[in-house]
């Protein structure tokens, strides 16, 4: 079926659903309301369990005094060995980019028909990277560009998936999350690519889980109380300048208001960034560190990492998706590229009303900030490439390749 045919099919489908649903207030509704509201309301929910069950063991905080002298000698030997190896093969090692800030443009990873492909440029030909009978999707590069994570379906209906991590060239694939932890989501790499963090439902509760990429290493479930509703969950984020600190939207007390906090992996302490106890009408959305690691964006606002200077961004509306450029100076708001401080040139992207190109959101910045890729969530819509400096937009030939992931490389 052609893409145009698919679009027509889906449009007609929506109309047919309305007909088929034949929505009318059911006869049983009043009785159902009566039965439901005759029960006591739940006063609170609790989080009694802290660690992953089954085949994952908890990582305990070491409390035994360490043999510093022996460790020192060992470290010295390791350093000497490393220095020798570095001298021997140093010229052959690939330079790595800084995990945050502008970088060089590497390959673009895409998922199509259950395999992972790469392209050298937007709209370029696809080369298989991870192919086989398994159903793989959602590729994601580590910030240093050395690792590639993706989700792999583990049942024949692909309803559940686990997280896999490979080297950036598709080799050395390892399963990071166990089969028992189904449906983990909102994954992100630690800056060095040595661990991944995401949200999973454990014993019916949303929890932040941290998995080392090394096979066999223990996973940790962080002692953070997340909102119960999936809709209120924001992806936890490693602080660019200190990966021991994790930005998270949490609830400190059951049924309490959600707030924006920084969790310290070393101490387990929470630092308050923003609490909005003044109103129940506020929800946190579009939460992310800015690349400088000193500021945080949330719900169309920016606040310093110490909680000061909380202010609205005029160009943004609440939870609107607003990807930030790698140099932290620009954001894409709708179909417009605007300076994050509001000062300077605004660039309209040439799509949407007044053009014959349908906009595709959200946009993804290239590592060097010179290109934007618009990727549609609807499989039959068209992928776009845009110049953030001129606003020129071009349609790409890619069809249904999921969310692109752009590799960062050294410049």
């Amino acid at each position, binding site marked *: 079926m052609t893409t145009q045919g698919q679009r027509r099919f889906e449009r007609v*489908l929506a109309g*047919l659903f309305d007909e088929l649903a034949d929505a009318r207030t*059911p006869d049983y*509704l009043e009785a*159902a309301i009566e039965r439901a509201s005759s029960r006591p309301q*739940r006063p609170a929910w609790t989080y009694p369990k802290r660690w992953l069950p089954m085949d994952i063991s908890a990582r305990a905080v070491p409390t035994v005094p360490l043999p510093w002298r022996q460790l020192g000698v060992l470290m010295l030997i390791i350093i000497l060995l490393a220095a020798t190896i570095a001298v021997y093969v140093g010229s052959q090692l690939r330079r790595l980019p800084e995990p945050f800030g502008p970088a060089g443009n590497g390959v673009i990873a895409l998922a199509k028909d259950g395999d992972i492909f790469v392209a050298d440029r937007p709209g370029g030909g696809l080369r298989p990277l991870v192919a086989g009978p398994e*159903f793989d999707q959602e590729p994601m590069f580590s910030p240093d560009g050395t690792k590639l994570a993706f989700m792999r379906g583990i049942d024949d209906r692909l*309803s559940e*998936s686990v997280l896999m991590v490979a080297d950036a060239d598709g080799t050395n694939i390892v399963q990071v999350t166990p089969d028992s932890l189904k449906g983990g989501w909102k994954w992100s790499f630690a800056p060095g690519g040595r661990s991944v963090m995401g949200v999973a439902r454990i014993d019916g509760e949303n929890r932040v889980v941290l998995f080392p990429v090394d096979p066999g290493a223990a996973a940790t479930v962080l002692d953070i109380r997340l909102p119960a509703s999936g809709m209120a969950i924001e992806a936890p984020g490693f602080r660019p300048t200190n990966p021991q600190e994790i930005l998270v939207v949490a609830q400190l007390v059951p049924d309490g208001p959600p707030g924006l906090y920084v969790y310290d992996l070393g101490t387990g302490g929470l630092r308050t960034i923003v609490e909005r106890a003044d109103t129940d009408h506020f929800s946190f959305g579009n939460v992310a560190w800015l690349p400088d690691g000193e500021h945080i964006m949330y719900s169309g606002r920016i606040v310093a990492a110490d909680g000061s200077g909380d202010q609205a961004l005029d160009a943004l509306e609440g939870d609107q998706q607003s990807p930030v450029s790698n140099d932290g100076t620009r954001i894409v708001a709708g179909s417009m590229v605007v300076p994050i401080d509001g000062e300077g040139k605004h660039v309209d992207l040439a799509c949407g009303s007044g053009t014959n190109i349908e906009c595709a959101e959200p946009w993804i910045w290239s590592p060097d900030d010179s290109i934007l890729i618009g990727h549609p969530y609807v499989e039959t819509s068209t992928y776009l490439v845009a110049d953030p400096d001129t606003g020129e937009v071009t349609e790409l030939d890619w069809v249904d390749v*999921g969310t692109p992931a752009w590799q960062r490389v050294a410049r």
Partner: protein
Amino acid sequence: MDQDGLVERARRGDRQAFAELVRASGARLDATARLILRDPDLAQDAVQETLIRAWRGLPGLRDPATFDHWLHSLVAHACIDLGRKRRRRVIEVELTPIHDAPTLDGAGLIADRDQLDRVLARLEPEARAVVVLHFYLDLPLPRVADMLGIPIGTAKSRLHRSLGAMRSALAIEEVASAPRAALGGPVG
């Protein structure tokens, strides 16, 4: 009173406010449950379960503006739970995609809603939930994924495979009823 005010009152245990909220959403809840479960009796059970979960869980809902989405998420989960329980009684039909049927391109294949009804019944409840939330409630896929607590890629693959199966099944039905084809004619 506006919906936010009603949610506030319901959270504090006001049954009348809860009833008003549910009456406004009742038709859509029931329709959603019927679409996902394909059984009016089970749909009634799912709506009942949804209302119980909603009433009990209302104190934990912090943002009144999300009440509708929250309710839809509850009904989708209730349907999936009930659908799983009765799955062993469902006759599974394996659908093989048709890739080379040049006359089967486009929406004109959809004869009527009865065809859609039959085809929808062959999907798993988890897949039907994604399809119904996306196409009937018109929710964007990222929102559907969040509501069901699944990765966006999983939601996409469920939708993709469901649409493929539906296109194929509709095409098969169309071929099977060839002499009386063109029930709907080209649409869109």
